[in-house]
């Protein structure tokens, strides 16, 4: 196995940070790691007063945000870190989005990594600025530096009772030598006054008044609105088209064809209709006459894919992991169980459909992009316009949801192509139907599980076979099939002790685009592991919580099998901690009203620990979730209320895929088109959700996604407790409840 070739998102984000051109070659990670290191060494720390902290002489402080806000709260949490080190008055802080400049900012936003990845860099940046301000004050007063300290937006000399505001010091401070970021002293965490406190979101007001500007709200004088007719079959192309009727629609201005672009952008190409307003553009598109060449995928369907998976599962796969001899242990065990779990494609369905506004002029370009990867957007536009990247100004706008979808640059590529073709500012706008049918979906997967218990009720064997439409296979250039540990995540290093542990993988080939969906492989791996262990508990006749704790055994740290170099180890003590806390808060051992069931799940993802207890039953033939009690340990919570919000959000997102609709394929295209046939949870079915956040002092870790993997297994385990029915395919179908 070559860990260097496993493409997980963490690595992707990093390579993405080197620019879009590096994207494809980025998969040869050993090279990229070296390049990264070289770059890091070259990188001189920028002046913090240019890059992160703008202080006006009037004492107004503006903190600069290099990440993208898509709802996850970085617009608040990251400035909190800077403000903490700077000892600012939080109420006076303002935030601005950074210009796209990969030399200074690590822009890529995803992998639940923004707070975790920015924690140290931002603390250092804030500390460097603070130290410079203190030095400036000491020089002004002509006193020993140690007698001065930062406090409340200024520097105080305790003995002299003198105070200088940062505004009075910034001009001198910004001219001082910049401290070494690696050795600059950081604040003692016991003195934290901002970090760790529930802090209201800075963007709540703008988002409650209609003032917040999302990508779709970008307005440029003279702009046209474009919608694109794309081949509904993945991989298909325009054979011929007639735009006469489209051009006859009032307010339609132009019709242009754009080519599809392969790996790196994965656009469908098609015919763009440009008009003075969005509505005319969609009507113009409806009037286009297009003949499609449906291409090689026109026969793919969810049925054909499932058939392939079943076939794959009847044969051994590529070995991802092999400890001991699982097959022998299974053969000799008297207590063994088997189960198959299945998952369909899942769409991101961000509330704001994809869109991108680009203006390409001969001397430069400007773009307004709701993107998780502004540097990638910049390089895509640079490539299409043939301008150097530094001539491409990318404004990262607020986003109506990201969830991984907005890491792609397909919609940016399209907008750049259309803008280039017409020479005017253009917004490419996707309708909901476009968004539902041309997403990069969470892979479909099929899992076969075998487990055995020994006479003492310990795990004697754990075997996991998976066939999926892997993400990496789509992005990999050379078409090789691999033992994809990236499709397993924590399922390749479960916390449950088994001497005989085997994991196998076979690629299921598909023309459907796939990529990172909220919590990525963990959304399915979490379900498989936490459902199957529950099945084993039932087979052993042991309480599911008790069983999990017992199988984890002594406290220990388990290396991240999928990313041993960079992933943090799984600490079973912390996982047990959240399981026990959730159980305690939920009243695990207390009886429930008749007909109601309680289920539990605990899981490790994005270096964080989550557990949830669900209370559910079946009402009118449907699963009804009444209550969710979460416990989460994501290291030091920068904004605990922000952590709770993210977990509440991930719960609903997970329930959506678990209890509502699937993306299904027929004739090489997506069958669903809008929220009418892809329903999502609404107010009435929202369970009462409690989130208990462990006030850890460990380094902060991810929280945008880890709430998701546990919710579906906990709910289905609760359904089992209530009814004795095991749910093994998602979303839950009525026939599986009957």
């Amino acid at each position: 196995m070559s860990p260097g070739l496993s493409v997980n998102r963490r690595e992707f984000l990093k390579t993405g940070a080197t620019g879009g051109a590096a994207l494809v070659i980025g998969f040869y990670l050993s090279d990229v790691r070296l390049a990264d290191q070289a770059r890091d060494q070259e990188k001189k720390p920028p002046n913090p007063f240019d890059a992160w902290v703008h202080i006006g002489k009037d004492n107004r402080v503006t903190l600069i945000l290099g990440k993208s806000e898509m709802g996850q709260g970085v617009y608040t949490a990251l400035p909190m870190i800077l403000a903490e080190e700077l000892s600012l008055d939080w109420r006076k802080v303002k935030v601005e989005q950074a210009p796209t400049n990969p030399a200074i900012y690590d822009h890529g936003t995803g992998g639940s990594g923004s707070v975790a990845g920015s924690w140290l860099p931002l603390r250092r940046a804030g500390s460097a600025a603070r130290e410079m301000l203190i030095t400036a004050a000491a020089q002004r007063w002509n006193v020993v530096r140690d007698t001065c300290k930062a406090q409340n937006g200024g520097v105080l000399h305790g003995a002299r009772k003198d105070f200088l505001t940062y505004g009075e010091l910034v001009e001198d401070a910004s001219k001082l030598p910049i401290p070494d970021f690696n050795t600059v002293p950081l604040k003692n965490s016991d003195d934290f006054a901002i970090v760790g406190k529930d802090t209201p979101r800075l963007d709540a007001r703008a988002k409650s008044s209609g003032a917040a500007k999302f990508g779709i709200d970008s307005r440029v004088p003279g702009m046209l609105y474009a919608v694109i007719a794309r081949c509904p079959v993945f991989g298909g192309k325009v054979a011929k088209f007639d735009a006469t009727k489209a051009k006859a629609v009032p307010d339609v201005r132009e019709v242009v064809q754009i080519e599809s672009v392969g790996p790196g952008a994965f656009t469908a190409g098609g015919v763009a209709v440009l008009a003075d307003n969005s509505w005319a553009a969609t009507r113009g598109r409806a009037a286009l006459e297009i003949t499609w060449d449906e291409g090689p995928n026109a026969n793919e369907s969810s049925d054909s894919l499932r058939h392939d998976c079943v076939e794959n599962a009847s044969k051994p796969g590529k070995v991802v992991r092999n400890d001991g001899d699982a097959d022998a242990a299974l053969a000799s065990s008297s207590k063994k169980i088997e189960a198959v779990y299945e998952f369909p494609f899942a769409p991101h369905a961000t509330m704001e459909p994809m869109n991108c506004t680009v203006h390409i002029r001969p001397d430069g370009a400007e773009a307004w992009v709701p993107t998780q990867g502004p540097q990638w957007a910049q390089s895509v536009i640079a490539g299409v316009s043939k301008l150097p990247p530094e001539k491409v100004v990318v404004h990262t706008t607020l986003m109506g949801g990201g969830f991984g979808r907005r890491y792609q640059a397909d919609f940016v590529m399209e907008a750049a192509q259309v803008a280039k073709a017409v020479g005017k500012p253009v917004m490419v706008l996707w309708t909901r139907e476009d968004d539902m049918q041309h997403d990069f979906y969470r892979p479909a997967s099929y899992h076969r599980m075998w487990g055995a218990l020994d006479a003492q009720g310990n795990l004697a064997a754990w075997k996991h076979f998976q066939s999926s439409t892997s993400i990496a296979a789509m992005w990999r250039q050379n078409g090789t099939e691999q033992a994809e540990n990236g499709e397993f995540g924590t399922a390749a290093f479960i916390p449950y002790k088994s001497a005989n542990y085997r994991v196998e993988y076979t690629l299921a080939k598909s023309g459907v685009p796939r990529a990172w969906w909220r919590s990525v492989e963990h959304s399915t791996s979490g379900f498989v592991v936490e459902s199957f262990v529950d099945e084993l508990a039932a087979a052993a006749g042991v309480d599911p919580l008790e069983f999990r704790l017992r199988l984890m055994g002594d406290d220990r740290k388990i290396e991240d099998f999928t990313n041993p170099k960079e992933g943090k180890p799984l600490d079973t003590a912390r996982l047990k901690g959240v399981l026990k806390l959730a159980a305690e808060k939920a009243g695990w051992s207390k009886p429930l009203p008749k007909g109601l069931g309680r289920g539990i799940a605990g899981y490790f993802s994005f270096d964080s620990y989550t557990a949830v207890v669900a209370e559910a039953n079946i009402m009118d033939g449907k699963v009804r979730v009444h209550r969710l009690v979460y416990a989460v340990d994501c290291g030091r919570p920068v904004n605990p209320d922000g952590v709770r919000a993210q977990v509440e959000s991930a719960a609903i997102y997970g329930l959506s895929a678990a209890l509502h609709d699937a993306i299904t394929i027929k004739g090489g295209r997506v069958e669903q088109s809008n929220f009418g046939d892809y329903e999502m949870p609404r107010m009435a079915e929202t369970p009462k959700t409690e989130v208990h956040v462990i006030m850890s002092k460990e380094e902060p870790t991810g929280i945008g996604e880890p709430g998701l993997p546990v919710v579906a297994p906990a709910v289905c385990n609760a359904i089992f407790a209530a009814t004795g029915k095991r749910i093994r395919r998602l979303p839950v179908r009525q026939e599986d409840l009957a």
Partner: protein
Amino acid sequence: MAITFTLNGKSQTLPSDVSPEMPLLWVLRDVLNLTGTKFGCGMAFCGACTVHLNGDAIRSCMTPVSSVAGKRVTTIEGLSPDASHPVQRAWIEEDVPQCGYCQSGQIMSATAMLAKKSNPTDADIDEAMSGNICRCGTYQRIRKAIHRAAAMSAAAKKPAA
């Protein structure tokens, strides 16, 4: 003939070349540049485009602009000049928005309900808010914010002792 209606308290006459069939949503967003009202689905499934028509919550994406002629339209921008409407204040205090994209529509649905039911039950909220999807799953906080707004308005109405 040019269409005239009352928009956020002021008379608004549309340019005569605006098609009477154009949905109100696109008139607001692309013709009048009032972008607080959002496009989510275009099919009355999600509620992102909710505005008030003569005080009722409607889906502007499926409302031809001709049908609002002579009527009163209120958008999120017209609710208050400074986010001071009790519902907006409650939204901020409960820290409701995440991505925020659905929230104009959520707030417009909530305000229309509260205008009719000043002290809604959970069941009232379930029903009135059933047309609004939040992909970020902020429903629990929306519910709390609606109760908070109702309490705020009730307190404001109480005659001073």
